[in-house]
């Protein structure tokens, strides 16, 4: 299980190190202990020979067989080719234990009674093997304990030390600039985390201020525009009262349409910023069907202006707890959107059931929905829409955590608002 989490990474490194260390150290200790013991043994053998040589003066040749009879591990042999002290390892069969045993043997040329002999001394190494093994095992055990201890301690300490960091991380992940929840970080004594929290706090504060400023700017700009727009509209209304040529009347009507469009755009901007700001907390029991049926006649009339037919199907009562103003604005914009983006002489079908509202309208090709949801994007230059309708729809569904889906099937744009997306 590879994981890129902080603790996993540091633990894995430690683990790897431990394993390598053990794999190398164990055998190395064994080999080193062996060697040390062997050196010990060699020293002992040489010492034995030295001790023997010191008794050389009193030792007679006739005593040699007796020496050999009573000494199992030290013998005197007739001379051979040996010129100097020779140490080597050899295996002998032990009659008592009935098994092969390793020995370290010294063969050294000595002089007894003026004649040359070979002195042999040997030491059983079986102890050595057991000892070395024991030491290695002990050593390995200690190392394992040590490393396990370090590992666990590291894990525990890390979790404790990094706790404020994880808390900060969690809060940042949950942060949304347009919601009112500002992160409040756990106080920490660790300098780096403290610095991090402070910087993050400042960053968030600044960005919230910028965001609010921008929203207010839009809102203020829209408010500022209201008076000049009102004056503009008023003067056009005045102009209409005068004697005009046909050409002048046409131009004036175009101007009237333009200022009307400006007005509606401005109103939509204000609405959008209001929705973003006020959140519309007050909720009550709302019947979506009722609202839809109330506005249906108006939109049917509007639709017929474009040669569109509107059918409404009530498949169930959709009753929710919500802000009625938001529901109305949502439905209004869904209707208007359907009318505006329908192919001429097409069909609009509205269906409401206990969970969903579905708006289906004839279309030519699939909408680039992401682009459309950005403010001001338009479908085609011929539509008179100002593009904010979809942004308003999305904002309202987001605020209430309703689901919104768009698909294009069989020549129909299908918008579905799911009012109970949580429970499937």
């Amino acid at each position, binding site marked *: 299980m590879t994981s890129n989490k902080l603790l996993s990474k540091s633990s894995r490194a430690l683990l790897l190190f431990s394993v390598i260390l053990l794999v190398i150290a164990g055998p190395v200790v064994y080999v080193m202990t062996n060697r040390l013991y062997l050196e010990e043994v060699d020293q002992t053998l040489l010492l034995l020979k030295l001790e023997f040589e010191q008794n050389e003066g009193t030792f007679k040749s006739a005593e040699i067989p007796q020496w050999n009879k009573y000494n199992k591990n030290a013998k005197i042999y007739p001379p051979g080719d040996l010129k100097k002290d020779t140490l080597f390892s050899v295996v002998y069969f032990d009659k008592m234990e009935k098994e092969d045993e390793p020995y370290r043997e010294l063969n050294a040329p000595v002089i007894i009674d003026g004649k040359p002999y070979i002195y042999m001394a040997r030491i059983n190494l079986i102890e050595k093997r057991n000892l070395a093994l024991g030491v290695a095992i002990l050593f390995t055990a200690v190392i394992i304990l040590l490393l396990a201890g370090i590992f666990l301690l590291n894990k525990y300490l890390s979790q404790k030390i990094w706790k404020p960091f994880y808390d900060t991380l969690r809060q940042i992940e949950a942060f949304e600039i347009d919601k009112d929840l500002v992160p409040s970080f756990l106080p920490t004594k660790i300098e780096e985390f403290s610095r991090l929290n402070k910087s993050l706090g400042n960053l968030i504060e600044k960005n919230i201020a910028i965001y609010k400023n921008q929203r207010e700017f839009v809102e203020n700009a829209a*408010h500022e525009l*209201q*008076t000049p*727009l*009102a*004056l503009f*509209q*008023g*003067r*056009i*209304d*005045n102009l*209409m*009262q005068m004697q*005009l040529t*046909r050409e002048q*009347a*046409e131009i*004036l*009507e175009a101007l*009237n*349409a333009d200022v*009307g469009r400006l*007005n*509606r755009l401005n*109103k*939509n901007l*204000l*609405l959008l910023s*209001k929705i973003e700001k006020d959140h519309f907390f007050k909720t009550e029991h709302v019947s979506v069907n009722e609202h839809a049926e109330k*506005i249906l006649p*108006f*939109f049917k*009339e*509007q639709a*017929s*202006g*474009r040669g569109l037919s509107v059918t409404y199907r009530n498949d169930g009562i959709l009753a929710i707890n919500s802000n009625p*103003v938001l529901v109305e604005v949502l439905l*209004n*914009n869904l*209707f*208007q959107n359907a*009318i*505006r983006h329908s192919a001429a002489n097409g069909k609009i079908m509205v269906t409401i059931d206990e969970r969903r509202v579905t708006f289906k309208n004839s279309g030519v090709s699939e909408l680039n929905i992401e682009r459309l949801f950005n403010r001001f994007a338009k479908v085609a230059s011929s539509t*008179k829409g100002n593009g904010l309708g979809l942004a308003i729809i999305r904002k309202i569904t987001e605020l209430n955590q309703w689901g919104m889906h768009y698909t294009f099937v069989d020549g129909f744009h299908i918008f579905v608002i799911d009012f109970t997306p949580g429970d499937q």
Partner: protein
Amino acid sequence: MKILIIEDELQITAGIKSYLKPHGVHCESVATTQAAIEKIGLYDYDCILLDLMLPDGDGFEVLKALKKCGKTEGVIIISAKENLDTRIEGFNLGADDYLTKPFHLSELLVRIQALIRRKNFKGYNMVRFNEIGVDILAKTVTVNDVPIEFTKKEIDLLLFLIGNQNKVLSKAAIAEHLSGDLADMLDNYDFIYAHIKNLKKKFHAAGGGDYIKTIYGLGYKWDDQQ
């Protein structure tokens, strides 16, 4: 009819005055709450148009002053604020109507007329134009005292036209008036053509005058010169 306009944008005030004058409405105007409260203390008005955002204070203070004086002038709030809370507060303080800027002056006129009617003719609410009579409460229309079938929308349109007589009304203004709250959702104005046609037909059939004039490219006008 005498009305008081409380509004700090002088050009808006001028626009209102010149529109209302031909309809027999005399307008006084002030631009601050202080001046407004003084005027209200001294004079009586049939109707008051009140802007909420005044340089020296909140329009609501004027409403409170009115209440204190015990005056029952009809107040129409004209404000740029499109706020449910503001509306509710306005109505709670005694305002009779609320118009959001920007609005068509034709809309303002019929609102004033409706307000005056409500105030002055409790029980008897009738609009007459030559041979045409409209009973507001009963929602009936008579031509030469002969009742004619009119839909609610058609009556609404008729009152709008008669109220703004001799003024060219743009299709937009008519459509917005008929759509009420949904005015912002208007996509096209074609539907008013049908209503206008019906009105003309019904008057013609009843032997009434041909007062509805089509103004090329712009809209319609209720002309008292046939």
